[in-house]
């Protein structure tokens, strides 16, 4: 079987638009008087954006309450295209999103080389860390500005960082710092850390340990959840035994796939809250969020998608909006102009979280508030009041300039 022959979905969304009075009016013979009203639309400029993702196999679920959502991110990028297009009506710019959704068993690299490399300069990626980095580092990938709307890996923002990749979602370090700030505010300084067996769980646990050190908390106990029993049946007795450790204030769980974390709350030996990847979570976006105009985008997204906006949708929305903002301000569709503007101090993106959003020039991470959400209530928004920074409090979350190990500005 030829990998290229696989079923590929390539959709080009060309938002049709019209501008009233766009046609030049027939000129009168005497040209001395300029027209009283300037023509609204200059020549049309097209900004081409590629959207690249790979479908995922449906993972084993702990419960059947929440349906699995395929292609998270896609509808977010489409909403942003329609927002950009509205602005484009007035500026004479048109935004085109070409979608490349690779099936589970498809060959991402081949599709990239065939259909994207050399043809697009702006790519929104929903790929996992490893394939993103491989493509961004390839010959064709180096001529592209990548917008990573899927990963939270700290390594992609540190020793593995690339000069041509911007990250829209908060890193694990930012999430862990957000939780740590909240716990410090509550004076919950003794943490019991419970970690799953997946490699991602270890990465999030590492971020939690870094945050504990940074904010002066103590991890009084750490245990690995081994999945040796069926939590659905025996959680009641097992979690009680499992959580019999030294005195602690809060149980911090690291279970990114959601394989056991939900079963900890209410079942621990001591009555302690659960925080981390379940219980109180740190996220870029949440359905409970309604401040700072968030209600408006929640409504617009729901109307279009028929479901709540997920983190990846929010990230892909921001990616396409960032491109739109840069293209509008620079009146350009050129990669260099767009990238320079995005990384300049003038760039300020509205992200419905109260602060202007921008990118950290040292590692390409979008600086942003992190929401701390319980399933049905928004508990807090980090940075938590009182955590100060000389430039912007947003930089109290994650890796700040002096500590970065990324050398993003060095072109390989």
């Amino acid at each position, binding site marked *: 079987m030829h990998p290229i022959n696989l079923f590929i979905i390539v959709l080009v969304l060309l938002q049709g638009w019209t501008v*009233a009075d766009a046609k030049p009016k027939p000129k009168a013979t005497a040209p001395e008087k300029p027209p009283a*009203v*300037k023509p*609204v639309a200059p020549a049309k400029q097209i900004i081409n954006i590629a959207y690249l993702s790979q479908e995922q196999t449906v993972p084993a679920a702990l419960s059947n309450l929440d349906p699995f959502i395929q292609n998270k991110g896609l509808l977010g990028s489409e909403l942003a295209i329609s*927002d950009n297009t*509205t*602005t484009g009506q*007035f*500026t004479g710019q048109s935004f085109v999103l070409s979608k490349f959704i690779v099936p589970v068993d498809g060959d991402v690299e081949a599709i990239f080389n065939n259909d994207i490399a050399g043809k697009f300069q702006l790519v929104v990626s929903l790929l996992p860390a490893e394939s993103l980095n491989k493509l961004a580092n390839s010959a064709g990938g180096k001529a592209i500005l990548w917008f990573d709307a899927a990963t939270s890996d700290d390594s992609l923002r540190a020793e593995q960082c690339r000069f041509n990749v911007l990250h829209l979602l908060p890193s694990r370090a930012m999430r862990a710092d957000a939780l740590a700030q909240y716990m410090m505010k509550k004076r919950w300084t003794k943490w019991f850390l419970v970690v799953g067996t997946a490699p991602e769980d270890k990465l999030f646990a590492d971020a939690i340990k870094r945050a504990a050190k940074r904010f002066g908390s103590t991890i009084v106990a750490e245990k690995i959840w081994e999945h040796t029993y069926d939590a659905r049946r025996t959680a009641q007795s097992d979690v009680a035994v499992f959580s019999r450790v030294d005195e602690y204030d809060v149980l911090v769980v690291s279970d990114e796939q959601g394989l056991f974390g939900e079963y900890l709350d209410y079942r621990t030996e001591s009555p302690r809250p659960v925080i981390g990847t379940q219980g109180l979570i740190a996220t870029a976006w949440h359905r409970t969020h309604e401040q700072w*105009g968030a209600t*408006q985008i929640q*409504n*617009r997204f729901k109307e279009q998608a028929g479901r709540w906006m997920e983190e990846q949708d929010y990230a892909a929305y921001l990616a396409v909006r960032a491109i739109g*903002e840069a293209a*509008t*301000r620079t009146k350009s569709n050129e990669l260099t102009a767009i990238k320079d503007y995005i990384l300049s101090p003038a760039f*300020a*993106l*509205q992200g419905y979280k*109260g*602060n*202007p959003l921008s990118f950290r020039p040292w590692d390409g991470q979008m600086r942003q508030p992190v929401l701390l959400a319980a399933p049905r209530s928004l508990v807090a928004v980090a940075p938590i009041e009182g955590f100060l*920074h000389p*430039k*912007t*409090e*947003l930089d109290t979350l994650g890796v700040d300039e002096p500590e970065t190990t990324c050398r993003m500005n060095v072109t390989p």
Partner: protein
Amino acid sequence: MRNKLLALALLSISATIQAETVFVSLEKDNALAIVDPIEGKLLKTVPIGQRPRGLALSSDNKFLFVATSDDNTIRMLDAETLKELAKLPSGKDPETFALSPNGEKLYVSNEDDSLVTVIDVASKKAIHEIKVGVEPEGITVSPDNQWLISASETTNMVHWIDTKTNAIVENTLVDPRPRAVNFTADSQQLWVTSEMSGTVMVLDAKTKQPIKTIKLEVDGVTFDKIQPVGVVIDKERKRAYVALGPANRVAVINAQTYQLEKTLLVGQRVWNLAFSPDQKRLYTTNGTSNDMSIIDLESQTVTKSVGVGSYPWGVAVKP
């Protein structure tokens, strides 16, 4: 002659003694606070409808209009008795709106639908819809009734709409997330606040282009807390005042030189501003400290804060 002068003097005394009334919409209390600003006292709170936000008085001060967002309507009240006279068809979730100077039209921003709805006040009917950018918010009409201005928060534009034709004539790109728009009394300048960039732009009504962009800065406050919202300019265009949102301050700007003169500490998350009729005082609504501040403009000091209720949003002043 002497009698006439005496009568004038008496008249002016009685005019200064007569207290003005400040109306404040309370977003979370579903109510309207009535404040005597001279005494600095909350007189009473009256229920008004679900989630009241935008607030305006007709220029003859006879009618008070209140956008009750969650009721999807703008209520028209008798400004004296506060009796409800009508519910206007504002469209969904009305937040901000503007009255034409002659009181004939009311223009509403419909944020979710990217529309401005035009309401004929006499017939109480929606007579027109104008398609604008994404999330229209700030809205105002020039005092000479020539321009209707709508600012789109996500499109980052100010739309210049001809009030005679209801057509967009020009669009000006402004700084990120424009919130409030207001004309100078002579209709020559439009001032626009941008929440995400911490700036105020002054646009020339003739060229529709910026004359000046004023960056607002406060010592000891990080740049991203400076989020300008409401803006008012005095009649002589000596000074402009800008509410700085979570920076908890009002900026005082010299409207001739465009220099930031000082900032005044008020309540938390200051949203909207209104002058007293004689422009000697400025009233602010402070969203999260549940109060309003009274600023004496001669001494440029905050003289009083008055607790009004939960989430004070809009403010209007009746002489």
